[in-house]
């Protein structure tokens, strides 16, 4: 029997949040979310309850990868180059701390976009969406230990990308 609207509502944020972070486009994320919700409605009852979150994330990821492939076919996809990310303008009206925070966010977004799969998905699902290791391993079809190693590498790459723009003394203060 198809899932009820109430059961679907429990998945809506995890689908959209993941899709938006992978696609970086609200319209595409909305389309993927609708498609995935329909699939979850149709087939969700065929998946065991305790494996459903991981399955939903897997369906979402596949839909996003399809959307990215379609986008690459449609127009030449140019990956973000960190060196080309403009620093936030340090407007005179903007206090330095705010400008630094805006700059940090911009560089973090770019660094995350630059991570290749599955590192990017792992960082998104763990650090942003706070999913359990079990659900992420299920979604990406990875052994738990491999997942932890990949998460370590993903986090490390983000730190390397951002270390240069945040002086160590600022972090220690």
């Amino acid at each position: 029997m198809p899932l009820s609207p109430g059961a679907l509502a429990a998945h809506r944020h995890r689908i959209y949040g993941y899709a938006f972070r992978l696609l970086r486009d609200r319209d595409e994320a909305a389309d993927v979310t609708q498609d995935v919700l329909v699939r979850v409605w149709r087939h969700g009852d065929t998946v065991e309850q305790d494996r459903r979150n991981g399955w939903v994330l897997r369906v979402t990821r596949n839909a996003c990868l399809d959307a990215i492939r379609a986008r690459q076919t449609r127009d030449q996809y140019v990956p973000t180059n960190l060196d080309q990310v403009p620093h936030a303008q340090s407007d005179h009206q903007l206090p330095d701390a705010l400008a630094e925070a805006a700059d940090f966010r911009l560089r973090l977004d770019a660094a995350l976009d630059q991570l290749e799969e599955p590192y990017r998905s792992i960082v998104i699902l763990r650090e942003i969406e706070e999913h359990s290791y079990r659900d992420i391993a299920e979604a990406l079809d990875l052994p738990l230990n491999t997942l932890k190693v990949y998460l370590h590498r993903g986090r490390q790459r983000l730190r390397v990308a951002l270390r240069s723009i945040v002086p160590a003394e600022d972090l220690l203060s």
Partner: protein
Amino acid sequence: MNCTTYEFRLEAFLDGGLSVEEASDFEKHLAECPECKSEVALSHRIRTELRNARADCPDEVFDAALARIATLNRDRPPILARKQARWYLAATAAALVVLAATVLQLSTPESSDTYTAEEVAEARQQVELAFGLVGEATRDAGVYLRKDIFVPHVFEPMRRGFGAAE
């Protein structure tokens, strides 16, 4: 223990996965090592920024999905139509039984002089086939009644009722 060792512990520290002793040991190291301390501070800041940027699904996106589902649901054959299809199958099988029984009747001793032994054997085969079809249709109908009627419309509401009463 050097910083390389602590670098691997950093992940577990961030996830709250160190034992009390290990965490205490790690914190002592942080107090003495500005490099590791800044690494932890940067990790915390990255995590905070990422979590602040979480995107929730807008209501209109979810509503649009529900509207699509409602349309798909409307286009599905209604339960009664599906039920009728099952009964048509059962009725067809029953008709075959009647037909086969008629043929069998013709093979009784009174009329056996007008039918050959091959014809009688063929009629018996048809009867067996018809009984098989009726059995299959009945089993399907039983499964259907249990899955699509009794469980969702009788057992589940009763179970929920009992659950609410507790």
